[in-house]
């Protein structure tokens, strides 16, 4: 029985349970909480974080971290915003492609320094966090991108819905974000590259000895993280319209929080995209609900976020590690029993 549910799935189920419990709790506290409107608000708030968290998950799986994503999101949002303001006639696919390409380039810088320069990811991305922000400030000359300079299709995008049931809307951008999560979940579980990320994260030395292209895979993880942060930058532009030099500042903390709360092990080697999405959903749900809850101080958010990260990491260490050993043991026992019964069946025949 135990072997049916993997420890990682225990984590995801727990998160799902906490999400439901949180909704149930706020429903008793805030009048009119359970409504389509709440769902629309929370799912819309997720778009940017979910997409960037997918990239972050790839990086964290390899035992690294990408703290520069907040600046990448801001820089890309500003760059693409300026571009669209100057050339409003561009086909929609062009700015998206440029956003992803610029993000990838910034990610490639991180990846080169980390994978080939052997500089620890915290150091590298703390540095590029500052450098990319400076690039944005220099690029902007303290000017801002404003909503009225952007083309109409872009401004309509955040309000376009795929499904509408009363005041419950599933926005098309939310669908894009979920599609990204699913695509990368599939990549992670079925593509050789995804499997290698797990191998590298659980034991880098063993991965190297086994002949895995360690440096290249880590490099690619950073490029993908940059690319997804670039896409996140585009979504950020679409969502907010007004882009200043502080756009995306502090986003990296929320993204790392979502990933860690979502059960992606900061030691590398375990985690899933669905977990990261659930983590992002929980954080977003708490933030938006606390704002609406009259009994809570609206400034309590960050304190709770910090506590949540700590709880997630601690439970990962204390509870999940124990679960994992029981799981492995139970599996081994099952295997032994299976071979023993197989041997028994063979013996009488022989």
């Amino acid at each position: 029985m135990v072997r049916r549910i993997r420890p990682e799935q225990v984590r995801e189920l727990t998160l799902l349970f906490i999400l439901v419990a949180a909704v149930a709790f706020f429903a008793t506290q805030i009048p009119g909480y359970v409504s389509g409107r709440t769902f629309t608000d929370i799912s819309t708030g997720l778009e940017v974080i979910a997409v960037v968290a997918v990239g972050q998950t790839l990086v964290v799986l390899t035992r690294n971290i990408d703290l520069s994503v907040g600046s990448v999101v801001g820089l890309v949002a500003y760059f693409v915003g300026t571009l669209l303001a100057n050339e409003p006639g561009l086909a929609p696919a062009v700015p998206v492609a440029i956003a992803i390409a610029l993000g990838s380039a910034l990610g490639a810088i991180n990846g080169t320094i980390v994978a080939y320069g052997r500089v620890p990811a915290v150091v590298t991305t703390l540095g590029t966090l500052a450098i990319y922000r400076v690039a944005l400030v220099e690029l902007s000359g303290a000017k801002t991108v404003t909503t009225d300079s952007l083309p109409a299709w872009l401004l309509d995008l955040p309000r376009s819905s795929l499904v509408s049931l009363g005041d419950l809307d599933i926005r098309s951008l939310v669908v894009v974000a979920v599609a990204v999560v699913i695509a990368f979940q599939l990549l992670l579980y079925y593509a050789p590259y995804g499997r290698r990320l797990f191998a590298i994260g659980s034991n880098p030395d063993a991965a190297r000895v086994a002949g895995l292209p360690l440096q290249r895979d880590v490099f690619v993880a950073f490029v993908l993280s940059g690319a997804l942060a670039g896409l996140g930058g585009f979504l950020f532009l679409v969502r907010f319209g007004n882009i200043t030099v502080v756009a995306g500042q502090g986003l990296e903390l929320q993204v790392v929080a979502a990933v860690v709360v979502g059960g992606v092990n900061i030691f590398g080697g375990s985690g899933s995209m669905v977990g990261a999405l659930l983590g992002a959903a929980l954080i977003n749900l708490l933030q938006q609900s606390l704002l609406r809850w009259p009994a809570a101080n609206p400034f309590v958010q960050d304190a709770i976020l910090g506590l949540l990260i700590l709880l997630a990491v601690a439970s990962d260490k204390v509870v999940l590690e124990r679960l994992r050993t029981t799981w492995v043991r139970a599996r081994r026992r099952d295997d032994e029993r299976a071979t023993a019964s197989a041997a028994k069946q063979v013996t009488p025949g022989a």
Partner: protein
Amino acid sequence: MRQRARQSRSPLAPELFRRLRSWEGLLLGVLAVIVVVTAAAVPGYLHPQNQINLLELSIEKAIVALALSFVIVSGEIDLSIASVMGLAAVLVAWLRQQGVPVEVGIVAALAAGTLCGLFNGYWVAIVGLPSLAVTLAGLIGYRGVALLLVEDRSIGGFPDWFNRLGQQPLVGPFPLALIVFAALVVIATVLLQFSGFGRYVYVVGSSREVARFSGVRVPRVKMAVFAMSGLTAAFAGVLLAARLGAVRGSTAEGFELDIITMVLLGGVSIFGGSGSMAGVILSILVILNLRNGLALANATGNTQAGVIGALLILSVLVPNLIAAARARAVRSARVEAGRRSLPSAK
């Protein structure tokens, strides 16, 4: 043998040469270049008062860098320092607003900082969580507590003596923070380089296992190191509050970039176990002079942060590249020697 012969010919020169080729020597060279260039461009730059002024502007960061060096030498990292600084600054102001005398507020802030450090230390040293994750949670959480206290207000109105300590010279031309920094430099150097505790910190940083089997109480050393970091950060936060005269929830936000750069540029290895106080002190001087020089060249605070960010990466990247190049040279020399020995063996 050859080396000894050379040494006996002139005992001082190679030693001096070796020193200069070390990381500290490199920093000294960089510092000299920055100072000479800025002094040539800006008249009065070398005037003692200007030097004191420029030191004063980042003195709180420099103080925290001294304590963070211990954490990094022990093989851990503390990302929460800037938030602890902010929390301590906010606590003094908030308590005063609640009618608590500033003296008591300072003690409370220092206690809170130590508590934050011990809290980080508990999860890292006793539970065994990665310090990166724990102190990232601290970075967000401690800042969150500070925001909870002051919300979006700015609190000032400290008593005169408190502001005067932060803003006016105390002894001769030197303000209190500078004197404290000088004293802490001596204490930190003695503690890290010349005390048993310092040895323990190095041993824990170079190999946790070896330290444990040698009878070093690793958790206790790590707890001590994190508590020191928290206490010092809180102290620096109080000094910052006195210098600024008013605090907000965002006070000291983003300081961790400068502080970590000061330590790593000083040659302290991010992997723990190596580095020296002399290097850290030199790198503090390099960064302060560089920031000052950039400000005089009309670079904005943001551009300065970018330069610091580049320095942070380079301070780890350059030694890595040098080591790789050296390893390659040694390898190719070996191959060369092997080739040469082949025909003779035939």
